[in-house]
């Protein structure tokens, strides 16, 4: 698999979480928090949705114990996809 860009992953996040009605892509900081009060405010259901989208689009699986680190930001998801999917 060729390297995935953070911008590609951001598009996946926008589509998977149905965020396009509220956010433009450039409003989502590639290094910004996805969960918690400071970020997009994602919750455990969103994490599950992201895991499904990652497996479908990039054929990578996220184990439960990896989730907190992988889903920290768009950049960390990108790093994980490129590391596991390489």
């Amino acid at each position, binding site marked *: 698999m060729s390297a995935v860009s953070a911008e590609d992953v951001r598009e996946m996040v926008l589509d998977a979480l*149905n965020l396009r009605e509220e956010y433009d892509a450039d409003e989502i900081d590639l290094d910004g928090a996805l969960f918690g009060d400071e970020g997009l405010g*994602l919750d455990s259901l*969103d994490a599950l949705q992201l895991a*499904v989208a990652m497996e*479908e689009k990039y054929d990578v699986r996220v184990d439960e114990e990896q989730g907190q680190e992988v889903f920290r930001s768009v950049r960390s998801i990108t790093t994980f996809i490129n590391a596991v999917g390489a």
Partner: protein
Amino acid sequence: MTGAAALSGAESVVVTSVGVLTPAGVGLDALLADPEEPQATPHTQEFALDDGSSFSVCQVPVKLRSLFQPVPKRLARLDRYPRLFLAAGLLALQDLDLSSALRTRTGVAVGSAFGCWGIDEVYHRGLVTRGHRLSSPLHFGYTVPGSAAGELSIAGTLRGPNATWVSGRCSGLLAVTEGVRWLREGRCDAVVAGAVDAQGAWLARELRDAGWPESTAGEGSVALLLERREDADRAGRQALLELEEGRTWFDTTATGDAWSVGGDAGSGPMIERLGDCFSIQPLARLLVAGLGHAGDRWSEVAATGACGHGASLRCRSGSEK
């Protein structure tokens, strides 16, 4: 007023606040606007269909963040169907400062011609093509027609009765009629009642296949805050419209959606340009009729859904008669 004391069927029910989203824009002003004004042109959206073609429909451009601050971040991910009604409902409730006691006894009644069919198709298509393990957990939560009413109850902390009708074009009239009954029966002290229909690629495809011309179908949402007149007067909330239940019926010989206006409903200025907004259209027409002119004249709107359910509702301007 408590429920036990409110069992008189003759009590007047009034509309004290309104939230409206149509392809003409947000708010009543857009609906009542002069269609000759350039900014009053209904918004259209082109949908890419899965066979490579496209089809345009009238759509409501709305970001919740532009209407309400702060908006819980969870709501940014709402499916379009609950999103539109939530926006209309919150518009109807904003600036009213309803007490927590009243919110405890405020119901939500929603009608929709199509309900959540759009997200149903997306979810089940994924289920069939990708299997259970990769079906969408986010979409699954919206595969119930009650999601629009439910999201408003949660966001508005409204703890009265909550119900949804998905019965074609008459659905909004059925929901408002039921809201009027709830108040007259004392089941609650206020009701947010209305209609919502959301467009999507799924419906655009169906409309194209059924031979509809482009941009003649629309979406929208209408939310009316209903109260008994004496309660509204006591709280100092102005009655915009007075409502009267019409008939509800079930006609097994009905062969398709239809709707009509009677009394003094007349034609609205902007409404003619909105396209066919399904369950929204009869309620929007009712608003235009009731708010478009003063006086003691009753207007009536009736509609029959494709399955044979029908309802009619009457209104006149809300000043005390």
